[in-house]
């Protein structure tokens, strides 16, 4: 219900001159932490690679050319599409999408459960969800590897109760990467959905039941559409970092689960690295994410009208 805003009194005019100085810290933070690094990366992606890492100030499209085009092993064949990196991208998108789906499947009921507890116990549940985040992501990912390795507690206890005869080879599989991504980003799904469900008016569910909707129909027709902004926010918050993740694929996956994050990571390591190429891959990844987010923002804007 948009009413006319409060009229601007003389006091507002006096403060108008202060707005810019007061916004200065914001601009400094955004400038230093966001604009400068991204600009640096953009510039680097157009520079020439120097041996033993680093760059030469020679502008070229070589990094992007390397990503999309191949001319054979010795560079003397006709130009063709280079599938290596596109495949890595496709695999990363698939892995991130799977992780997002898994987080949604587990995260929605979890968020629902927490949001429907009495107000005083909700805080405790939320606290429990966030506790693992006090520990560094690297440590947590390594611990996960210890948990699921062939001589780890998971396999040993499964064998002890006789469910399996030989240990399951979980490490270096897609499943392990999924588990890692799921474990890393679950709270990013739970928290926004929790916030949406907590605001949900349960009289709407009663109204739906009163109008002959079954429980399933109520969920599908009323609950999910109404809490959708929370679900979408959670999906974005899980999908985007999963797409660029490198710890989980690196530590839990193998050659077959190589993802974008690891590809970029490699380009900045030691003398084998290629800084312009790493920067170019980052730029391509970022533009993809931007396109998805802009499309979502536009869709939201249209729905909100």
């Amino acid at each position: 219900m948009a009413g006319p805003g409060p009229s601007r009194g003389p006091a507002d005019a006096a403060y108008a001159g202060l707005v810019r100085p007061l916004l200065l810290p914001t601009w400094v933070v955004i400038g230093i932490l966001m604009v400068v690094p991204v600009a640096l990366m953009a510039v680097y992606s157009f520079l020439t690679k120097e041996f033993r890492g680093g760059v030469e100030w020679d502008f070229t499209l070589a990094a992007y050319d390397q990503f999309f085009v191949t001319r054979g092993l010795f560079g003397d064949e006709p130009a063709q599409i280079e599938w290596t990196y596109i495949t890595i991208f496709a695999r990363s998108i698939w892995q991130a999408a799977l992780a997002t789906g898994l987080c949604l499947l587990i995260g929605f009921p979890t968020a629902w459960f927490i949001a429907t507890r009495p107000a005083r116990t909700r805080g405790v549940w939320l606290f429990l969800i966030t506790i693992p985040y006090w520990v560094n992501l690297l440590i947590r990912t390594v611990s996960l590897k210890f948990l699921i390795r062939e001589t780890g507690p998971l396999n040993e206890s499964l064998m002890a109760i006789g469910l399996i005869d030989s240990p399951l080879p979980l490490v270096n599989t897609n499943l392990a990467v999924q588990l890692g991504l799921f474990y890393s980003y679950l709270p990013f799904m739970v928290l926004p959905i929790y916030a949406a469900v907590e605001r949900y008016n349960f009289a709407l569910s009663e109204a739906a039941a009163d109008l002959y909707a079954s429980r399933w129909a109520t969920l599908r027709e009323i609950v999910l559409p109404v809490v959708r902004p929370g679900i979408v926010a959670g999906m974005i918050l899980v999908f985007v970092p999963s797409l660029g993740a490198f710890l989980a694929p690196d530590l839990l996956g193998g050659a077959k689960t190589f993802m974008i994050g690891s590809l970029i990571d490699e380009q900045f390591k030691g003398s084998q690295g290629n800084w312009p190429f790493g920067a170019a891959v980052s730029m391509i990844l970022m533009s993809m994410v931007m396109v998805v987010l802009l499309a979502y923002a536009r869709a939201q804007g249209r729905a909100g009208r």
Partner: protein
Amino acid sequence: MTAAVEIRRAVKRYGSVTALHRVDLSIADNEFFTLLGPSGCGKTTLLRMIAGFEDVTEGEIRLFGDDIARLEPNHRPVNTVFQHYALFPHMSVIDNVAFGLKMKGVDAATRRDRAGRMLEMVHLSAFADRSPAQLSGGQQQRVALARALAPDPKVLLLDEPLSALDLKLRQAMRVELKQLQEDTGITFIFVTHDQEEALTMSDRIAVMSEGRVQQVGTARDIYEAPVNRFVADFIGETNLLEVEVEAVAGGVATVALPGGHRLTCPSATSATGRHHLSIRPERLTLSQDADLTATVERVVYLGTDLQVIARLDGGTPFTLRLQNAARVAAPEPGARVGLHLEEGAARLLAD
């Protein structure tokens, strides 16, 4: 004839707290029936039990003969107008109205047609494609009404639907609701704490207090022949005087008024001893032929009426209402006046 809704010995307990004590009610088909009482009296609990949102601890709820007490709400052919409307925010007005039909499996063309006619009935055809958030409170209220009526329920339940509206709108909606009930022929069960609402719309009213039905009757019954102190006090204004009952026989009591006069009046109790006498403030006249004498303390001008606040000789506060007619001279504060009770003005109450 089978009652539209028959509630038999219905009990509702929350743990050790009893919200409803053995309620028995029979609501006729095509009746505008109101559950009236202060907050916490159990009226909303009872309505929610009929809708299916609350379990019935004991007893039966029959809808045209069928016991529905154990059915899920989506299997009960009754619909509800919620206090704060509970319109679906992500759907247009017409989709809201058509929702019940959609869940019942009615095809899209038929339900759009029927929803359209429902909106016409509540004068909102022009708003069909708006979102509920774009409507005023009164308009949302009408959408809620159209939505609940669209599936053609056997009984419509209304949970204080007018309480969120401002006074003028509330008064207009009362007339409209009553008209709608007569036009559709659907049984309405209306919950309110507002006695004026109850008195103006209802065919019959159940006055509730502390989880019990105190009295069931027409507006005239409960106003003019309240059975107990609670009903007399809750409905309208009244003066309650503690009096000595000298004799009761055949529903008529002889009581001694403070000041010595004797009075015979209808009685809701058969016991002698000390009881309360209810005297409606508008059933008194100023007269030399006085049943009671009082000293005027204040006169309040109310437009159509004058409210006279006085004190009886025994010290009991006492209020009367005089019509503001030209020929009536307003008494002055401090004046001693004689009060004459009209025929049927007083009634002896059970406690």
